[in-house]
């Protein structure tokens, strides 16, 4: 095992190396050179993050103080630079709301810094434990894969949209900058640092959403910025509370969490609000849907597998504080309502990326609900959800991106019979979807775990969440299954054509599918070696979270599902082919029928969207309303009620 020092150097490498790469990539213009740089950079980051993960299995949490004194000032200057940039951009775009909030944030931050200069307890700036390890692995591996995928994707993207400015060096630069920031978020112990990295991710998200430079993209980018800033503004407030009330030693994450609810509840609650905004919970959710204008790798990396996870990560960090608290229950309710409402809205969407976006919001909601409940079992489920979701969702996003470039549409309706045109890619999407909602696969394991967790916790609120999940799981089954159906429904078989897909894209998809299945088999290992030890450090005792017999059953199911396709060949040849039943009047081929007025009509079979019940506008209005109500209630309790 690595010594503490080498380990720390690894952490610093993970933060600084992508930063270096970012700078490098911004300068590189040649495509081949960039390719080499991105691939090698991604591989290095991936390996380093995996080493971190492996190491965190055996080592306890490690804390590390950066020996350089001036670095705190540098961070502050960084904060000011970010704010300055945002201010200039927002003024240029006449986004005065953004401008105002940034100014507010800056003032708060200056106040905090002033207090910090006056009274500064020495706490370790960086740390790493099992949760950081897991997060780092997700960022490193998935982030790396997505960056490599983006190489091929962005080339096609610009070939398809010649009207949009080709700023690929900058694009990859920001992607790596983002990776650096994400590592910073998960390794920071000093909340001031964390805030700095947090703001960088917000900025990266803003820059990447507006990458297409269309009016819509710019508008949505500012909306994302605004919502994240509103949330982010809560963090300096939390700092103020810490510095004014509890004492500066609690600016350390570890110190704050272990201090218990008495001290930590108000700052934790405030930071959690920032987390809610970042992870696009109602009422903040609309920014994430808008963010789908960004190129697909961005959606995959920032808006489903990593950046939004930062939001839930921070809530998960404070989960032990929330256990059994009204604040926690409110957060859990926000998560629960988000889960239900976003899933329901996903039913009415036919744009594949929007479906994915809403499903992401929904799953983040479920994670938030678990964290809000804050018991060991709930947290266990939450972390598994983070892992499974990150992998399966990025797989889905990337496959959809690939399909989009082949069929020039991201509408699910246009994916009818994709299985004959692109069997491999379709298989990947199917695995991804199965991973999102079907029994032996990842998300369902966690859903099962969260049900187990909720039923016993904080009665009767836990039951409320159980009821929400009960409804939500039926709803999720609906929209995923209809998508699956669309993919495999074959009207007239199309010619198989997957040759245009760049090899790098394909390989990335293979790896991600393998990972999706792999974590299903490997989740007990993740649980035993990573999550449970981590939970043990947070909670004194952790009961048997998943019994061996249930794991056996899940494995049996998984094997069944994986073995089944081998019987497919048996069925494909035995039957006499007859055209589909069209009330006895097929006409020319088998998808047309002899219609009225002497017109031969093609059958068209669109999915159901149940707009009247699950319409986007209607449900958004209701759930944003509820979200605002709950957030206001939460803030009231935190600020006016003083945390009760």
């Amino acid at each position, binding site marked *: 095992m690595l010594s503490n020092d080498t380990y720390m150097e690894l952490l610093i490498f993970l933060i600084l190396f992508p930063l270096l790469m970012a700078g490098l990539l911004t300068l590189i213009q040649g495509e081949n050179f960039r390719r080499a740089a991105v691939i090698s950079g991604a591989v290095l980051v991936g390996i380093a993050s995996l080493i971190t993960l492996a190491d965190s299995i055996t080592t306890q949490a490690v804390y590390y103080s950066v020996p350089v004194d001036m670095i705190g000032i540098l961070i502050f200057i960084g904060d000011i630079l970010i704010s300055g940039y945002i201010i200039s951009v927002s003024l240029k775009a006449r986004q005065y709301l953004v401008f105002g909030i940034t100014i507010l944030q800056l003032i708060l931050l200056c106040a905090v810094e002033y207090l910090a200069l006056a009274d500064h307890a020495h706490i370790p700036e960086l740390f790493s434990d099992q949760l950081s390890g897991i997060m780092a692995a997700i960022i490193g591996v998935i982030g790396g894969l997505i960056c490599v995928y983006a190489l091929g994707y962005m080339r096609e993207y610009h070939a398809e949209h010649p009207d949009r400015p080709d700023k690929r060096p900058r694009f990859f630069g920001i992607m790596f900058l983002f990776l650096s920031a994400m590592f910073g978020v998960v390794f920071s112990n000093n909340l001031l640092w964390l805030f700095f990295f947090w703001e960088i991710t917000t900025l990266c998200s803003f820059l990447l959403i507006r990458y297409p430079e269309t009016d819509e993209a710019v508008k949505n980018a500012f909306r994302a910025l605004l919502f994240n800033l509103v949330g982010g503004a809560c963090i300096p407030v939390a700092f103020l509370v810490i510095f004014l009330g509890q004492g500066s030693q609690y600016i350390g994450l570890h110190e704050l969490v272990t201090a218990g609810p008495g001290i930590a509840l108000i700052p934790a609650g405030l930071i959690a609000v920032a987390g809610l905004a970042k992870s696009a919970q109602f009422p903040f959710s609309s920014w994430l849907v808008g963010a789908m204008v960004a190129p697909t790798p961005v959606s995959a990396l920032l808006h489903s597998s990593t950046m939004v996870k930062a939001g839930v990560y921070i809530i998960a960090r404070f989960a032990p504080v929330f256990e059994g608290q009204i604040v926690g229950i409110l957060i859990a309710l926000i998560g629960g309502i988000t889960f239900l409402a976003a899933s329901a809205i996903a039913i009415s969407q036919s744009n594949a990326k929007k479906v994915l976006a809403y499903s992401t919001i929904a799953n983040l909601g479920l994670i938030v609900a678990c964290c809000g409940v804050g018991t060991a079992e709930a947290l266990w489920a939450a972390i598994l959800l983070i892992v499974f979701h990150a992998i399966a969702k990025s797989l889905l996003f990337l496959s959809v991106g690939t399909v989009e470039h082949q069929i020039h549409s991201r509408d699910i309706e246009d994916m009818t019979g994709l299985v004959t045109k692109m069997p491999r890619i379709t298989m990947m999407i199917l695995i991804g979807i199965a991973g999102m909602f079907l029994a032996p696969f990842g998300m369902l394991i966690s859903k099962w775990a969260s049900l187990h967790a909720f039923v016993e916790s904080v009665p009767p609120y836990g039951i409320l969440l159980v009821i929400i999940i009960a409804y939500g799981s039926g709803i999720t089954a609906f929209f995923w299954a209809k998508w699956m159906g669309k993919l495999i429904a074959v009207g007239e078989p199309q010619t198989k054509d997957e040759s245009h897909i760049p090899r790098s894209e394909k390989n990335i998809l293979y790896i991600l599918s393998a990972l999706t299945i792999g974590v299903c088999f490997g989740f007990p290992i993740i649980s035993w070696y990573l999550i449970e030890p981590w939970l043990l450090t947070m909670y004194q005792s952790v009961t048997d979270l998943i019994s061996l017999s249930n794991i056996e059953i899940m494995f049996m199911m998984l094997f069944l599902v994986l073995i089944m396709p081998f019987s497919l060949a048996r069925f494909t040849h035995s039957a006499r082919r007859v055209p589909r*039943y069209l009330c006895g009047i097929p006409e020319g081929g088998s998808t047309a029928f002899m219609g009225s007025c002497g017109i031969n009509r093609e059958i068209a079979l669109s999915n159901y969207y149940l707009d009247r019940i699950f319409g986007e506008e209607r449900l958004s209005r209701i759930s944003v309303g509820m979200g605002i109500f709950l957030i206001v209630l939460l803030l009231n309790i935190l600020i006016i009620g003083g945390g009760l």
Partner: protein
Amino acid sequence: MNSMDPFIAAALFIILAPVVGILITGLDRILTARMQGRVGPPVLQPWYDIRKLFQKKQVAVWGAQSFFIFCYLIFIIFTGALFFGGGDILLVIFAFTLGHVFLVLGAYVSYSPYAHIGAERELIQLMAVEPMIIIAAIGLYQVNGSFLIGDMANHPGLPILLLPGVFLGFIYILTFKLRKSPFDLATSHHAHQELVKGSTTEFSGRTLAMVELAHIYELVVMLGFIWLFFGDNLWLCICAIIIIMVLEILVDNCTSRVRWQDAMTSAWFVTLVAGAGNIFALSIM
């Protein structure tokens, strides 16, 4: 369902469920006929039907549809085995859903109008009943303190006394699961509906036989669920199952099919009021 070895119980289910299921279905058909003033088929008619379907030559739009139906059958049997083997009730429910998703996919594959609409409706049904089934499982857990069906079946006492609302809600959605009027939206026992045979329209021969067989396994599993509401009172359980079955048949014969909106919203409403209300009340107590 006392402390039998889980594997033996599961094996017994796989062998005996078709026998029991076919007898129940046969009696169901006779009773239905009698309620309509007819004589009805022989008791073993479902058995004849299934055997006949196996004797027929296959026709299919695409071969893959049989594959999905095969998966459906296997997972329904797996669900049942898990259930009677005394496994975790939530896992049983999820396996059950998985099985149904395969049925739906089988219906989607053919890209046939009626099968497609049937599949969509099958999903609507799934969406309508899923909450109640999960809530029933949670309710049973609250009473038994265990998610294991093995423990629930051996629970001394009557869970139904604490779970009247859940039981009511469960009976309500049982009608969906048994594909009986008024909720036989996706496919019905008789074809006189707007969807021809709905989701099963494109299946024939062996494939259809597998669907029928899976329905029979499903029936036994669903009746097994009723069992859990009565703990270890064997005779009471059997009486309850008979009464409920007769009641379902009566309802089947006393109602027309309703539209999907009514079906879904009413199921959700009943789930919310009776089911969710019940478990919420239990958690406060």
